[in-house]
């Protein structure tokens, strides 16, 4: 097991490195450069050229690349072209709201999707099923930012039960923190939960038809026990895998939702940096996002061993 984890961590590092490299070259392939953005449209060609020289953008690409890579290995993500702040500090400042929204969004999604999916499978083709699948279909069909706008209009504007904009750290109190992230989390959680609910439903329906479920009934166990003791864990096996993969969808949703709710998060920083051609910040943000994604999936795979005894990592490999 330990060997497996070490292998996967090494693997993850390689994946992140490749992603970072691709981003490094990709941002430089976009037309426009930071010097021009920084100095504005009126700046003279000489001034722009001087600034480019200053930023090291005139050097050959491979020189820039190797310099950047060697810095990364020293833990230095560089400084923002735009604000002269350290990229690492900027990222740390915005990571909290983004992770809060994504985390709560995931919890909301799972809390809705799994019970609804099970109910739907057990009561298939009855009204409970139609309600649950209908709602999940709505969730899947509506983009997160649009759900966010609707939620804002109803809960913040009309009812006024929660604040509409901004973010408050949990260090300033759990309740204000929850108030500020509840709607954004719901907005990212609903589409994610909608997909998971459909997955849970089909997985549970499949499990209900398994021979071992019939065996459990033939043993004289009651319905709830059969469902939760014999069925649920089996039904969750594919759900866990899918939940990990769909994390990318969730993280992507957070970017747009942050903008709707005026939250200074990772997504917003990333978009602003792309507009400004702030290369070091873009690269740093993408590294952080891929880091979260890759390690969450590693976590899911490790969790997989505890819910599926047929999988044992390590051993020979």
């Amino acid at each position: 097991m330990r060997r497996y984890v070490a292998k996967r961590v090494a693997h993850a590092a390689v994946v992140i490195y490749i992603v970072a490299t691709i981003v490094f070259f990709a941002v430089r392939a976009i037309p426009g450069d930071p010097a021009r953005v920084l100095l504005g449209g009126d700046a003279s060609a000489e001034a722009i050229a001087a600034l480019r020289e200053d930023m090291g953008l005139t050097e050959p690409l491979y020189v820039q690349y190797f310099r950047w890579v060697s810095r990364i290995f020293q833990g230095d993500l560089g400084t923002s072209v735009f604000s002269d702040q350290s990229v690492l500090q900027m990222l740390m400042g915005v990571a909290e709201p983004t992770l809060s929204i994504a985390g709560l969004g995931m919890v909301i999604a799972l809390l809705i999707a799994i019970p609804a999916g099970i109910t739907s499978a057990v009561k298939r083709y009855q009204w409970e099923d139609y309600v649950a699948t209908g709602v999940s279909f709505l969730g899947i069909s509506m983009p997160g930012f649009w759900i966010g706008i609707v939620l804002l209009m109803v809960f913040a504007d009309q009812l006024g039960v929660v604040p509409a904009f901004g973010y408050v750290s949990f260090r300033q109190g759990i309740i204000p923190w929850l108030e500020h992230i509840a709607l954004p989390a719901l907005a990212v959680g609903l589409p994610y939960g909608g997909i998971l609910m459909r997955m849970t439903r089909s997985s549970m329906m499949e499990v209900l038809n398994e021979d071992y479920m019939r065996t459990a009934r033939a043993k004289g166990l009651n319905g709830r026990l059969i469902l939760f003791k014999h069925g649920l864990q089996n039904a969750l096996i594919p759900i866990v895998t899918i939940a990990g993969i769909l994390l990318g969808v969730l993280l992507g949703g957070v970017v747009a939702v942050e903008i709707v709710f005026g939250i200074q998060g990772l997504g917003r920083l990333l978009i602003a940096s792309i507009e400004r051609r702030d290369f070091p910040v873009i690269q740093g943000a993408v590294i952080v996002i891929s880091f979260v994604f890759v390690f969450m999936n590693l976590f899911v795979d490790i969790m997989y061993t505890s819910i599926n005894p047929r999988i044992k990592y390590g051993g020979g490999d």
Partner: protein
Amino acid sequence: MSSSLPPNANAQQESNATASPTDGGDDPLLVVEDLHTTFSTDRGEVPAVDGVSFAIEEGEVFGVVGESGSGKSVTALSLLGLADGARVEADRVSFRDEDLLAKDERGLRAIRGNDISMIFQDPMSSLNPVMTVGEQIAEVVRHHNDIGESRSLFAELRRKYVTGTSESSASWERAVELLETVGIPDPGDRAHEYPHQLSGGMKQRVMIAQALAGDPDLIIADEPTTALDVTIEAQILNELLDLRDEFGVSIMLITHDLAVVRETCDRVAVMYAGELMETADAGTLFDDPRHPYTRGLINSIPRTDDDREWLDAIEGNVPDPTAKPSGCPFSDRCGAAFSLCGEPLVGYPAGKSGHRTWCHLYNDAVSRDGDEIDHVDEMKAKQHIEEYAAAADGVPYRPDFGSEYA
């Protein structure tokens, strides 16, 4: 489940009525009279079991043999209310003195696994892959015996996810004991393993241990060896027979394999398209098979002393259950079919006690030489059929077979 008399019930009910009251002794363990299990599908009503009657005595091995789709498994599932989506009707399904048809789900749960337990065909898919085999057996012990271990949902889930089943609990100890009983080496260690860690034969032994855990009176084994290697098959069948000898448990053995029947069963019912074709004790069935279908089945068994170049296969296929021929369902494949085959089927008693054949060849009004019909007195024959059918009404049930084994 509901008990009601379908319109064509009389034809089959006769099976019990013609029985001359014999000295069978105690009442049989399980009595099934005129069982009908019907599935409603898009293509119409499918009578998977169509008027089947039989009785199983204490301590006997009762074989039910037939092709795939002949309704053997559905018959078994119907008894325990496990035939999902089916309408189950019968004149009587009684186990000891309990009426299984009158029981609701709760009542049936108390029977399942406790008085009647089942072993399924494929041990690979019939055991829960995410539970240790010990726990799968222990939970049956817990649920059907009052041993002071909580079986609430909460307690069960905590046991499964938090504490695990205590090795010193009575249910676990019993589970280990049962694993030993069915011949699993190192049962204490094996109990902690998951099904995928065991071989096919081992898994089927676990199924058997699980079936024994509630101290049942009847074990229904639905093709228990079909998924196993031939060498393992013999071991598992011997295991079942040993258990019968040791615990006096009755076994209903469902199989498509006549060789298995010959080795293990005391009495046999041959089924075809949801109906009975012939019942007899196992020896008689092989020495003196009467129904053309039974003879066809026996002739299609390969033998080591064969000098036949080709096995005698039965031509044609099992009829579409939504469009069975009227009268005898086998008539369209039967080499001996004649004018009476469209008449309602009744069970004609043959020489030996309990031997009965649902074939009009054995009507008294038919004179024949083997399967060659000489003459049929149609009027008299139909009269006989009506008499057999009518005799069914109001005659108390006495099992006419199995007395030899009582």
